[in-house]
Protein backbone atom coordinates (compact mmCIF):
# COMPACT_ATOMS: atom_id res chain seq x y z
CA UNK A 1 0.00 0.00 0.00
CA UNK A 2 1.50 3.31 -1.05
CA UNK A 3 0.74 6.33 1.05
CA UNK A 4 1.43 10.01 0.49
CA UNK A 5 1.60 12.54 3.28
CA UNK A 6 1.51 16.26 2.49
CA UNK A 7 3.07 18.53 5.03
CA UNK A 8 3.68 22.18 5.65
CA UNK A 9 5.71 24.16 8.11
CA UNK A 10 4.01 26.52 10.52
CA UNK A 11 5.21 28.76 13.33
CA UNK A 12 5.51 26.89 16.63
CA UNK A 13 2.18 27.28 18.47
CA UNK A 14 4.07 29.12 21.27
CA UNK A 15 4.81 31.94 18.83
CA UNK A 16 3.59 35.45 19.58
CA UNK A 17 2.35 36.71 16.22
CA UNK A 18 3.67 40.17 15.36
CA UNK A 19 2.33 42.13 12.42
CA UNK A 20 4.89 43.58 10.01
CA UNK A 21 5.22 47.24 9.01
CA UNK A 22 3.24 46.70 5.80
CA UNK A 23 0.21 45.70 7.89
CA UNK A 24 -0.39 42.72 5.62
CA UNK A 25 2.09 40.10 6.76
CA UNK A 26 3.68 38.80 9.94
CA UNK A 27 7.25 39.25 11.13
CA UNK A 28 9.02 35.96 10.49
CA UNK A 29 12.44 36.80 11.97
CA UNK A 30 12.25 35.03 15.32
CA UNK A 31 9.84 32.31 14.36
CA UNK A 32 10.67 28.72 15.15
CA UNK A 33 9.21 26.64 12.31
CA UNK A 34 7.74 23.24 13.06
CA UNK A 35 5.92 20.56 11.12
CA UNK A 36 2.20 21.42 11.26
CA UNK A 37 0.99 19.36 14.26
CA UNK A 38 -1.94 17.90 12.30
CA UNK A 39 0.43 16.76 9.53
CA UNK A 40 2.43 14.85 12.13
CA UNK A 41 -0.66 12.74 12.87
CA UNK A 42 -0.82 12.04 9.14
CA UNK A 43 2.80 10.87 9.04
CA UNK A 44 2.30 8.59 12.03
CA UNK A 45 -0.89 7.05 10.60
CA UNK A 46 0.81 6.44 7.26
CA UNK A 47 3.66 4.64 9.02
CA UNK A 48 1.28 2.49 11.05
CA UNK A 49 -0.62 1.44 7.92
CA UNK A 50 2.64 0.72 6.11
CA UNK A 51 3.82 -1.46 9.00
CA UNK A 52 0.72 -3.60 8.55
CA UNK A 53 0.31 -3.64 4.78
CA UNK A 54 3.78 -2.90 3.44
CA UNK A 55 4.43 -0.40 0.66
CA UNK A 56 6.02 3.00 0.66
CA UNK A 57 5.37 6.30 2.41
CA UNK A 58 6.22 9.43 0.43
CA UNK A 59 6.25 12.81 2.12
CA UNK A 60 5.61 15.92 0.06
CA UNK A 61 6.37 19.38 1.40
CA UNK A 62 5.85 22.73 -0.21
CA UNK A 63 7.55 25.98 0.67
CA UNK A 64 10.99 27.48 1.12
CA UNK A 65 14.14 25.34 1.60
CA UNK A 66 13.66 25.25 5.37
CA UNK A 67 10.74 22.84 4.79
CA UNK A 68 13.44 20.23 4.06
CA UNK A 69 13.96 19.92 7.84
CA UNK A 70 10.36 18.83 8.36
CA UNK A 71 10.58 16.37 5.48
CA UNK A 72 13.76 14.95 7.05
CA UNK A 73 11.92 14.65 10.35
CA UNK A 74 9.22 12.58 8.64
CA UNK A 75 11.90 10.46 6.95
CA UNK A 76 13.57 9.96 10.34
CA UNK A 77 10.22 8.83 11.76
CA UNK A 78 10.20 6.15 9.05
CA UNK A 79 8.89 7.56 5.78
CA UNK A 80 10.71 6.26 2.70
CA UNK A 81 11.19 9.26 0.46
CA UNK A 82 10.54 12.94 0.24
CA UNK A 83 9.65 15.55 -2.34
CA UNK A 84 10.05 19.29 -1.78
CA UNK A 85 8.18 21.63 -4.09
CA UNK A 86 10.14 24.83 -3.81
CA UNK A 87 10.12 27.84 -6.06
CA UNK A 88 10.41 31.55 -5.29
CA UNK A 89 7.25 32.04 -7.37
CA UNK A 90 5.28 30.00 -4.81
CA UNK A 91 5.77 32.55 -2.04
CA UNK A 92 2.35 33.88 -0.94
CA UNK A 93 0.29 31.31 -2.88
CA UNK A 94 -3.28 30.74 -1.72
CA UNK A 95 -4.79 27.36 -0.79
CA UNK A 96 -6.05 26.50 -4.27
CA UNK A 97 -2.64 27.23 -5.80
CA UNK A 98 -0.93 25.05 -3.20
CA UNK A 99 -3.37 22.22 -3.94
CA UNK A 100 -2.67 22.63 -7.65
CA UNK A 101 1.10 22.29 -7.18
CA UNK A 102 0.66 19.24 -4.94
CA UNK A 103 -1.72 17.67 -7.45
CA UNK A 104 0.83 18.15 -10.22
CA UNK A 105 3.40 16.10 -8.28
CA UNK A 106 0.94 13.46 -7.14
CA UNK A 107 -0.73 12.86 -10.52
CA UNK A 108 2.18 10.81 -11.78
CA UNK A 109 2.46 8.74 -8.62
CA UNK A 110 0.98 5.43 -7.59
CA UNK A 111 -0.93 5.80 -4.30
CA UNK A 112 -3.74 4.36 -2.22
CA UNK A 113 -4.15 6.88 0.59
CA UNK A 114 -3.17 10.54 0.94
CA UNK A 115 -2.97 12.19 4.34
CA UNK A 116 -2.92 15.91 5.02
CA UNK A 117 -3.47 17.74 8.30
CA UNK A 118 -7.08 18.86 8.82
CA UNK A 119 -5.78 22.44 8.75
CA UNK A 120 -2.55 24.37 9.09
CA UNK A 121 -2.33 26.02 12.50
CA UNK A 122 -1.16 29.20 10.77
CA UNK A 123 -3.87 30.48 8.47
CA UNK A 124 -6.41 27.90 9.71
CA UNK A 125 -8.01 27.53 6.29
CA UNK A 126 -8.48 23.77 6.10
CA UNK A 127 -8.87 23.94 2.33
CA UNK A 128 -5.82 22.29 0.77
CA UNK A 129 -6.76 18.67 1.57
CA UNK A 130 -10.27 18.80 0.10
CA UNK A 131 -9.11 20.91 -2.84
CA UNK A 132 -6.31 18.45 -3.61
CA UNK A 133 -8.76 15.55 -3.55
CA UNK A 134 -11.03 17.44 -5.93
CA UNK A 135 -8.20 18.11 -8.37
CA UNK A 136 -7.21 14.44 -8.26
CA UNK A 137 -10.86 13.39 -8.55
CA UNK A 138 -10.69 11.14 -5.50
CA UNK A 139 -12.95 11.22 -2.42
CA UNK A 140 -11.91 13.00 0.76
CA UNK A 141 -12.84 12.45 4.39
CA UNK A 142 -12.12 15.39 6.69
CA UNK A 143 -11.11 15.70 10.33
CA UNK A 144 -10.58 12.03 11.07
CA UNK A 145 -9.64 10.50 14.44
CA UNK A 146 -9.56 6.81 13.51
CA UNK A 147 -8.78 4.90 10.34
CA UNK A 148 -9.53 1.21 9.82
CA UNK A 149 -8.18 -0.20 6.58
CA UNK A 150 -10.01 -3.37 5.48
CA UNK A 151 -7.97 -6.58 5.66
CA UNK A 152 -8.01 -6.89 1.87
CA UNK A 153 -6.50 -3.38 1.62
CA UNK A 154 -9.19 -2.23 -0.80
CA UNK A 155 -11.31 0.08 1.33
CA UNK A 156 -11.31 1.83 4.67
CA UNK A 157 -13.52 3.25 7.37
CA UNK A 158 -12.77 6.66 8.83
CA UNK A 159 -14.21 8.05 12.05
CA UNK A 160 -15.11 11.70 11.85
CA UNK A 161 -16.42 13.43 14.99
CA UNK A 162 -18.81 16.27 14.24
CA UNK A 163 -21.13 18.22 16.57
CA UNK A 164 -22.63 15.66 18.96
CA UNK A 165 -21.89 12.55 16.90
CA UNK A 166 -19.22 10.52 15.18
CA UNK A 167 -19.71 9.69 11.52
CA UNK A 168 -18.20 6.45 10.34
CA UNK A 169 -17.51 6.91 6.66
CA UNK A 170 -16.63 4.15 4.26
CA UNK A 171 -14.63 4.69 1.11
CA UNK A 172 -12.82 2.75 -1.54
CA UNK A 173 -9.21 3.61 -2.37
CA UNK A 174 -7.61 5.88 -3.29
CA UNK A 175 -8.94 8.36 -0.76
CA UNK A 176 -7.63 11.51 0.89
CA UNK A 177 -7.94 11.80 4.66
CA UNK A 178 -7.32 14.90 6.75
CA UNK A 179 -5.90 14.09 10.17
CA UNK A 180 -7.31 15.40 13.44
CA UNK A 181 -5.75 15.27 16.88
CA UNK A 182 -6.67 11.98 18.52
CA UNK A 183 -5.80 9.90 15.44
CA UNK A 184 -2.62 8.62 17.11
CA UNK A 185 0.39 9.59 19.18
CA UNK A 186 3.18 10.52 16.75
CA UNK A 187 6.45 8.72 17.41
CA UNK A 188 9.73 10.49 17.98
CA UNK A 189 12.49 10.00 15.45
CA UNK A 190 15.09 7.60 16.87
CA UNK A 191 18.81 8.29 16.51
CA UNK A 192 19.28 5.46 13.97
CA UNK A 193 16.19 6.82 12.21
CA UNK A 194 17.80 10.25 11.96
CA UNK A 195 21.01 8.71 10.58
CA UNK A 196 19.09 6.68 8.01
CA UNK A 197 16.99 9.67 6.98
CA UNK A 198 20.11 11.42 5.69
CA UNK A 199 20.47 8.76 3.01
CA UNK A 200 16.84 8.58 1.98
CA UNK A 201 15.93 10.15 -1.37
CA UNK A 202 14.68 13.72 -1.24
CA UNK A 203 13.81 15.20 -4.58
CA UNK A 204 13.30 18.88 -5.27
CA UNK A 205 10.85 20.22 -7.82
CA UNK A 206 10.30 23.69 -9.18
CA UNK A 207 7.17 24.92 -10.94
CA UNK A 208 8.99 24.53 -14.25
CA UNK A 209 9.72 20.86 -13.43
CA UNK A 210 5.99 20.40 -12.96
CA UNK A 211 5.12 22.32 -16.15
CA UNK A 212 3.11 24.82 -14.11
CA UNK A 213 2.66 28.48 -15.02
CA UNK A 214 4.25 30.69 -12.32
CA UNK A 215 1.63 33.42 -12.87
CA UNK A 216 -1.00 31.11 -11.28
CA UNK A 217 1.03 31.10 -8.07
CA UNK A 218 2.37 33.49 -5.47
CA UNK A 219 0.88 36.86 -4.57
CA UNK A 220 -0.03 37.57 -8.18
CA UNK A 221 -2.08 34.40 -8.53
CA UNK A 222 -4.09 34.97 -5.35
CA UNK A 223 -7.84 35.07 -5.73
CA UNK A 224 -8.16 36.54 -2.27
CA UNK A 225 -6.17 39.58 -1.16
CA UNK A 226 -5.21 40.59 2.34
CA UNK A 227 -6.35 44.16 2.98
CA UNK A 228 -4.84 44.26 6.44
CA UNK A 229 -3.84 42.19 9.43
CA UNK A 230 -4.73 43.44 12.87
CA UNK A 231 -4.03 42.23 16.40
CA UNK A 232 -7.03 40.61 18.09
CA UNK A 233 -9.50 43.10 19.56
CA UNK A 234 -8.34 44.22 23.00
CA UNK A 235 -10.54 43.16 25.86
CA UNK A 236 -11.30 45.83 28.42
CA UNK A 237 -9.63 45.47 31.81
CA UNK A 238 -11.46 42.95 33.96
CA UNK A 239 -12.62 43.09 37.53
CA UNK A 240 -11.05 41.02 40.29
CA UNK A 241 -13.77 39.89 42.66
CA UNK A 242 -12.97 40.80 46.26
CA UNK A 243 -14.23 39.04 49.37
CA UNK A 244 -13.13 37.69 52.75
CA UNK A 245 -14.08 34.08 52.08
CA UNK A 246 -14.53 31.90 48.99
CA UNK A 247 -18.27 31.90 49.72
CA UNK A 248 -18.39 35.71 49.60
CA UNK A 249 -16.47 35.79 46.34
CA UNK A 250 -18.70 33.11 44.82
CA UNK A 251 -21.80 35.00 45.91
CA UNK A 252 -20.52 38.28 44.43
CA UNK A 253 -19.56 36.53 41.17
CA UNK A 254 -23.01 34.94 40.89
CA UNK A 255 -24.60 38.35 41.47
CA UNK A 256 -22.43 40.03 38.81
CA UNK A 257 -23.13 37.30 36.24
CA UNK A 258 -26.83 37.64 36.90
CA UNK A 259 -27.29 41.38 37.37
CA UNK A 260 -24.39 43.13 35.64
CA UNK A 261 -23.45 40.82 32.76
CA UNK A 262 -26.93 39.28 32.56
CA UNK A 263 -25.63 35.98 31.22
CA UNK A 264 -27.59 33.79 33.63
Amino acid at each position, binding site marked *: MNIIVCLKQV*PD*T*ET*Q*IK*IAQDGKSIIEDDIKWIMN*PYDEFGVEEALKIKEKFGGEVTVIGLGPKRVTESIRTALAMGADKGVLISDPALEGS*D*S*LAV*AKALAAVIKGMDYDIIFTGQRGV*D*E*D*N*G*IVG*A*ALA*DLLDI*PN*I*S*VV*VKVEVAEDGKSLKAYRPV*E*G*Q*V*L*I*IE*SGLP*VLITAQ*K*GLNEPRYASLPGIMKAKKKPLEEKTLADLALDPSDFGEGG*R*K*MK*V*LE*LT*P*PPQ*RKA*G*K*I*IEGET*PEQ*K*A*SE*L*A*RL*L*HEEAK*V*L
Partner: protein
Amino acid sequence: MAQGVMIIAEERDGEIRKVSYEVVSEGRRLADSLGQNLTALLLGSNIKDKAPKLGHYGADKVIVADDPRLEKYTTDAYVSVIAQIVKANDPAILLLGASFQGKDLSARLSARLGVAMAQDCTMFAIEDGNLVATRPIYAGKAYAKLTFNNSWPQMATARPKVMALNTPDESRSAEILDASFTLDDGSIKTKVADIVKDESGKIDLTEADKIVSGGRGMKGPDNYNILEELASVIGATVGASRSAVDAGWRPQTDQVGQTGKVVSPNLYIACGISGAIQHLAGMSTSKLIVAVNKDPDAPIFQKADYGVVDDLFKIVPALTEEIKKIL
Protein backbone atom coordinates in the same frame (compact mmCIF):
# COMPACT_ATOMS: atom_id res chain seq x y z
CA MET B 1 -22.99 39.40 -14.07
CA ALA B 2 -22.98 37.68 -10.73
CA GLN B 3 -25.72 39.01 -8.50
CA GLY B 4 -27.41 38.38 -5.17
CA VAL B 5 -26.46 36.50 -2.05
CA MET B 6 -26.84 32.74 -1.74
CA ILE B 7 -26.52 30.74 1.45
CA ILE B 8 -26.36 26.99 1.84
CA ALA B 9 -28.44 25.67 4.71
CA GLU B 10 -27.45 22.63 6.73
CA GLU B 11 -29.91 20.01 7.84
CA ARG B 12 -29.63 17.14 10.28
CA ASP B 13 -32.33 14.57 11.09
CA GLY B 14 -34.93 16.62 9.26
CA GLU B 15 -34.21 19.90 11.04
CA ILE B 16 -32.32 22.94 9.80
CA ARG B 17 -29.36 23.62 12.08
CA LYS B 18 -29.11 26.84 14.06
CA VAL B 19 -25.89 27.91 12.37
CA SER B 20 -27.85 28.08 9.11
CA TYR B 21 -30.29 30.59 10.60
CA GLU B 22 -27.29 32.67 11.67
CA VAL B 23 -26.01 32.54 8.10
CA VAL B 24 -29.42 33.44 6.62
CA SER B 25 -29.58 36.39 9.02
CA GLU B 26 -26.13 37.60 8.00
CA GLY B 27 -26.94 36.94 4.34
CA ARG B 28 -30.06 39.12 4.71
CA ARG B 29 -27.96 42.03 6.03
CA LEU B 30 -25.45 41.70 3.18
CA ALA B 31 -28.22 41.42 0.56
CA ASP B 32 -29.86 44.54 1.99
CA SER B 33 -26.69 46.56 1.85
CA LEU B 34 -26.25 45.48 -1.79
CA GLY B 35 -29.93 46.07 -2.51
CA GLN B 36 -30.14 42.52 -3.88
CA ASN B 37 -31.95 39.27 -3.18
CA LEU B 38 -31.13 36.48 -0.76
CA THR B 39 -31.52 32.89 -1.90
CA ALA B 40 -31.18 29.91 0.42
CA LEU B 41 -30.31 26.47 -0.82
CA LEU B 42 -31.60 23.50 1.15
CA LEU B 43 -30.57 19.90 0.46
CA GLY B 44 -31.93 16.74 1.98
CA SER B 45 -34.61 14.09 1.67
CA ASN B 46 -38.26 14.98 2.41
CA ILE B 47 -37.06 18.35 3.57
CA LYS B 48 -39.25 20.71 1.59
CA ASP B 49 -41.65 21.44 4.47
CA LYS B 50 -38.74 23.08 6.34
CA ALA B 51 -38.00 25.58 3.58
CA PRO B 52 -40.46 28.30 4.75
CA LYS B 53 -38.45 28.67 7.99
CA LEU B 54 -35.52 30.01 5.99
CA GLY B 55 -37.92 32.64 4.67
CA HIS B 56 -38.87 33.62 8.23
CA TYR B 57 -35.25 34.49 8.90
CA GLY B 58 -34.86 36.55 5.74
CA ALA B 59 -34.51 34.45 2.56
CA ASP B 60 -36.44 35.78 -0.44
CA LYS B 61 -36.21 32.51 -2.27
CA VAL B 62 -35.46 28.94 -1.17
CA ILE B 63 -34.21 26.41 -3.67
CA VAL B 64 -34.78 22.86 -2.46
CA ALA B 65 -32.82 19.86 -3.69
CA ASP B 66 -34.86 16.95 -2.40
CA ASP B 67 -33.46 13.51 -3.16
CA PRO B 68 -33.12 10.31 -1.12
CA ARG B 69 -29.41 10.29 -2.00
CA LEU B 70 -29.05 13.61 -0.19
CA GLU B 71 -30.56 12.35 3.06
CA LYS B 72 -27.17 11.96 4.71
CA TYR B 73 -24.42 14.40 3.87
CA THR B 74 -21.65 13.06 1.70
CA THR B 75 -19.05 15.43 0.31
CA ASP B 76 -19.28 13.90 -3.18
CA ALA B 77 -23.03 14.19 -3.65
CA TYR B 78 -23.43 17.60 -2.01
CA VAL B 79 -20.54 19.25 -3.84
CA SER B 80 -21.75 17.89 -7.16
CA VAL B 81 -25.35 19.09 -6.69
CA ILE B 82 -24.47 22.45 -5.14
CA ALA B 83 -21.89 23.30 -7.79
CA GLN B 84 -24.56 22.88 -10.49
CA ILE B 85 -27.07 25.08 -8.66
CA VAL B 86 -24.50 27.78 -7.86
CA LYS B 87 -23.38 27.92 -11.48
CA ALA B 88 -26.97 28.16 -12.72
CA ASN B 89 -27.81 30.99 -10.30
CA ASP B 90 -24.50 32.88 -10.48
CA PRO B 91 -24.63 34.60 -7.06
CA ALA B 92 -22.16 37.37 -6.16
CA ILE B 93 -21.76 36.05 -2.63
CA LEU B 94 -21.97 32.47 -1.37
CA LEU B 95 -22.10 31.85 2.38
CA LEU B 96 -22.13 28.73 4.55
CA GLY B 97 -21.85 28.06 8.27
CA ALA B 98 -18.40 26.96 9.46
CA SER B 99 -19.71 23.81 11.11
CA PHE B 100 -17.86 20.53 10.57
CA GLN B 101 -20.04 19.84 7.55
CA GLY B 102 -19.82 23.41 6.28
CA LYS B 103 -16.04 23.44 6.46
CA ASP B 104 -15.72 20.17 4.60
CA LEU B 105 -18.28 21.12 1.97
CA SER B 106 -16.99 24.65 1.40
CA ALA B 107 -13.37 23.56 1.00
CA ARG B 108 -14.15 21.08 -1.74
CA LEU B 109 -16.82 23.26 -3.34
CA SER B 110 -14.38 26.18 -3.62
CA ALA B 111 -11.99 23.93 -5.54
CA ARG B 112 -14.81 22.66 -7.77
CA LEU B 113 -15.89 26.22 -8.53
CA GLY B 114 -12.27 27.35 -8.81
CA VAL B 115 -12.82 30.26 -6.43
CA ALA B 116 -11.16 31.55 -3.27
CA MET B 117 -12.86 30.94 0.06
CA ALA B 118 -12.58 32.73 3.39
CA GLN B 119 -12.99 30.10 6.11
CA ASP B 120 -14.53 30.63 9.54
CA CYS B 121 -15.15 34.39 9.35
CA THR B 122 -16.25 36.50 12.30
CA MET B 123 -17.34 39.61 10.39
CA PHE B 124 -18.58 40.58 6.95
CA ALA B 125 -19.11 43.94 5.32
CA ILE B 126 -19.85 45.33 1.89
CA GLU B 127 -17.32 47.89 0.69
CA ASP B 128 -17.64 49.41 -2.80
CA GLY B 129 -20.13 46.70 -3.65
CA ASN B 130 -17.73 43.91 -2.75
CA LEU B 131 -17.57 41.48 0.16
CA VAL B 132 -14.94 42.15 2.79
CA ALA B 133 -14.45 39.21 5.15
CA THR B 134 -12.64 39.29 8.48
CA ARG B 135 -11.33 36.08 9.95
CA PRO B 136 -9.06 35.06 12.81
CA ILE B 137 -5.76 33.49 11.79
CA TYR B 138 -3.21 31.72 14.00
CA ALA B 139 -6.30 30.66 16.00
CA GLY B 140 -7.07 34.29 16.79
CA LYS B 141 -3.60 35.64 17.51
CA ALA B 142 -4.23 37.96 14.54
CA TYR B 143 -7.18 38.91 12.34
CA ALA B 144 -7.08 39.16 8.56
CA LYS B 145 -9.34 41.45 6.58
CA LEU B 146 -9.77 39.98 3.10
CA THR B 147 -11.22 40.87 -0.23
CA PHE B 148 -11.67 38.82 -3.38
CA ASN B 149 -9.77 39.30 -6.59
CA ASN B 150 -12.07 38.65 -9.51
CA SER B 151 -13.25 35.41 -7.93
CA TRP B 152 -17.01 34.79 -8.29
CA PRO B 153 -18.91 33.99 -6.21
CA GLN B 154 -17.15 35.61 -3.29
CA MET B 155 -17.27 32.62 -0.99
CA ALA B 156 -16.98 32.43 2.79
CA THR B 157 -18.04 30.48 5.86
CA ALA B 158 -19.28 32.11 9.06
CA ARG B 159 -18.12 30.96 12.47
CA PRO B 160 -21.02 29.53 14.50
CA LYS B 161 -22.34 31.66 17.37
CA VAL B 162 -20.89 34.90 16.02
CA MET B 163 -23.42 36.30 13.52
CA ALA B 164 -26.50 37.89 15.09
CA LEU B 165 -29.68 35.89 14.63
CA ASN B 166 -32.69 37.69 13.12
CA THR B 167 -36.00 37.44 14.92
CA PRO B 168 -38.02 35.02 12.80
CA ASP B 169 -41.03 36.65 11.17
CA GLU B 170 -43.64 34.01 10.36
CA SER B 171 -45.54 36.39 8.12
CA ARG B 172 -42.55 36.55 5.79
CA SER B 173 -42.89 34.01 3.02
CA ALA B 174 -40.18 32.98 0.61
CA GLU B 175 -40.68 31.74 -2.90
CA ILE B 176 -39.93 28.01 -2.84
CA LEU B 177 -38.50 26.31 -5.90
CA ASP B 178 -37.36 22.81 -6.76
CA ALA B 179 -33.75 22.62 -7.79
CA SER B 180 -32.89 21.09 -11.10
CA PHE B 181 -29.77 18.98 -10.98
CA THR B 182 -28.37 15.66 -12.06
CA LEU B 183 -26.59 13.29 -9.74
CA ASP B 184 -24.65 10.34 -11.04
CA ASP B 185 -24.60 7.44 -8.55
CA GLY B 186 -21.11 6.59 -9.72
CA SER B 187 -19.84 9.94 -8.49
CA ILE B 188 -20.76 9.11 -4.89
CA LYS B 189 -17.64 7.37 -3.67
CA THR B 190 -18.12 7.59 0.09
CA LYS B 191 -20.97 6.47 2.27
CA VAL B 192 -21.96 7.06 5.86
CA ALA B 193 -21.74 3.52 7.20
CA ASP B 194 -22.78 4.40 10.73
CA ILE B 195 -23.45 7.30 13.07
CA VAL B 196 -22.55 7.05 16.73
CA LYS B 197 -24.56 9.64 18.64
CA ASP B 198 -23.35 11.17 21.85
CA GLU B 199 -26.29 10.16 24.05
CA SER B 200 -25.41 12.65 26.77
CA GLY B 201 -27.02 15.34 24.63
CA LYS B 202 -23.97 17.50 25.22
CA ILE B 203 -23.88 20.54 22.94
CA ASP B 204 -20.65 20.78 20.99
CA LEU B 205 -18.19 23.36 22.29
CA THR B 206 -18.25 25.23 18.97
CA GLU B 207 -21.99 25.76 19.32
CA ALA B 208 -22.32 26.06 23.09
CA ASP B 209 -23.84 29.18 24.61
CA LYS B 210 -21.91 28.66 27.85
CA ILE B 211 -18.71 26.74 28.58
CA VAL B 212 -17.14 25.71 31.87
CA SER B 213 -13.57 24.69 31.19
CA GLY B 214 -10.97 23.04 33.40
CA GLY B 215 -7.20 22.87 33.12
CA ARG B 216 -4.20 21.50 34.93
CA GLY B 217 -5.50 23.03 38.16
CA MET B 218 -8.26 20.40 38.21
CA LYS B 219 -5.56 17.96 39.40
CA GLY B 220 -7.27 14.85 38.03
CA PRO B 221 -10.14 13.49 35.96
CA ASP B 222 -12.51 12.82 38.88
CA ASN B 223 -12.53 16.44 39.96
CA TYR B 224 -14.33 17.46 36.80
CA ASN B 225 -17.57 16.47 38.51
CA ILE B 226 -17.66 19.90 40.17
CA LEU B 227 -17.48 21.50 36.71
CA GLU B 228 -20.15 19.12 35.41
CA GLU B 229 -22.42 20.19 38.27
CA LEU B 230 -21.93 23.88 37.61
CA ALA B 231 -22.42 23.25 33.89
CA SER B 232 -25.68 21.40 34.43
CA VAL B 233 -27.04 24.24 36.59
CA ILE B 234 -26.27 26.96 34.04
CA GLY B 235 -26.76 24.85 30.87
CA ALA B 236 -23.12 24.82 29.83
CA THR B 237 -20.82 22.41 28.03
CA VAL B 238 -17.64 21.31 29.80
CA GLY B 239 -14.37 22.00 28.03
CA ALA B 240 -10.71 21.44 28.86
CA SER B 241 -7.26 22.82 28.24
CA ARG B 242 -4.67 20.96 26.22
CA SER B 243 -2.75 19.83 29.31
CA ALA B 244 -5.89 18.24 30.75
CA VAL B 245 -6.53 16.44 27.45
CA ASP B 246 -2.92 15.36 27.03
CA ALA B 247 -2.97 14.01 30.60
CA GLY B 248 -5.91 11.84 29.54
CA TRP B 249 -8.34 13.48 31.97
CA ARG B 250 -10.76 14.56 29.24
CA PRO B 251 -11.48 13.39 25.67
CA GLN B 252 -9.83 15.17 22.79
CA THR B 253 -13.20 16.53 21.60
CA ASP B 254 -13.27 18.69 24.76
CA GLN B 255 -10.05 20.57 23.98
CA VAL B 256 -10.26 24.33 23.55
CA GLY B 257 -7.32 26.09 21.90
CA GLN B 258 -5.09 26.34 18.88
CA THR B 259 -4.87 22.57 18.37
CA GLY B 260 -8.40 22.03 19.62
CA LYS B 261 -11.63 23.89 19.14
CA VAL B 262 -11.98 27.62 18.74
CA VAL B 263 -15.05 28.71 20.67
CA SER B 264 -17.22 31.84 20.98
CA PRO B 265 -19.75 31.27 23.77
CA ASN B 266 -21.61 34.03 25.59
CA LEU B 267 -19.99 32.87 28.83
CA TYR B 268 -16.66 31.08 29.28
CA ILE B 269 -15.66 30.08 32.80
CA ALA B 270 -12.00 29.00 32.98
CA CYS B 271 -11.16 27.01 36.10
CA GLY B 272 -7.58 26.17 36.96
CA ILE B 273 -6.43 27.26 33.51
CA SER B 274 -3.33 29.44 33.57
CA GLY B 275 -3.91 30.74 30.04
CA ALA B 276 -1.18 29.47 27.73
CA ILE B 277 -1.12 31.47 24.49
CA GLN B 278 -2.58 28.50 22.58
CA HIS B 279 -5.54 28.33 24.96
CA LEU B 280 -6.17 32.07 24.95
CA ALA B 281 -6.16 31.98 21.16
CA GLY B 282 -8.98 29.45 21.20
CA MET B 283 -11.37 31.25 23.53
CA SER B 284 -10.70 34.97 23.29
CA THR B 285 -13.76 35.63 21.10
CA SER B 286 -15.98 34.54 24.02
CA LYS B 287 -18.32 37.36 24.95
CA LEU B 288 -17.78 37.16 28.71
CA ILE B 289 -14.81 35.45 30.32
CA VAL B 290 -14.57 34.41 33.96
CA ALA B 291 -11.33 33.04 35.40
CA VAL B 292 -10.89 31.17 38.64
CA ASN B 293 -7.29 30.53 39.53
CA LYS B 294 -5.11 30.47 42.65
CA ASP B 295 -2.26 32.25 40.92
CA PRO B 296 -2.92 36.00 40.68
CA ASP B 297 -0.27 36.29 37.94
CA ALA B 298 -1.89 33.71 35.65
CA PRO B 299 -2.15 35.18 32.11
CA ILE B 300 -5.82 34.15 31.94
CA PHE B 301 -6.66 37.13 34.19
CA GLN B 302 -5.56 39.51 31.43
CA LYS B 303 -8.41 38.20 29.26
CA ALA B 304 -11.00 37.79 32.01
CA ASP B 305 -13.91 40.15 32.57
CA TYR B 306 -14.32 38.75 36.06
CA GLY B 307 -11.46 37.13 37.92
CA VAL B 308 -11.49 35.22 41.18
CA VAL B 309 -8.12 34.59 42.79
CA ASP B 310 -8.81 31.63 45.01
CA ASP B 311 -8.98 27.86 45.26
CA LEU B 312 -11.29 26.61 42.53
CA PHE B 313 -12.28 23.61 44.67
CA LYS B 314 -13.90 26.07 47.08
CA ILE B 315 -15.16 28.63 44.57
CA VAL B 316 -16.81 26.38 42.00
CA PRO B 317 -19.11 24.43 44.38
CA ALA B 318 -20.00 27.67 46.19
CA LEU B 319 -20.75 29.37 42.87
CA THR B 320 -22.99 26.46 41.86
CA GLU B 321 -24.96 26.83 45.11
CA GLU B 322 -25.23 30.63 44.76
CA ILE B 323 -26.49 30.34 41.19
CA LYS B 324 -29.07 27.74 42.22
CA LYS B 325 -30.44 30.31 44.70
CA ILE B 326 -30.74 32.95 41.98
CA LEU B 327 -32.22 30.84 39.20
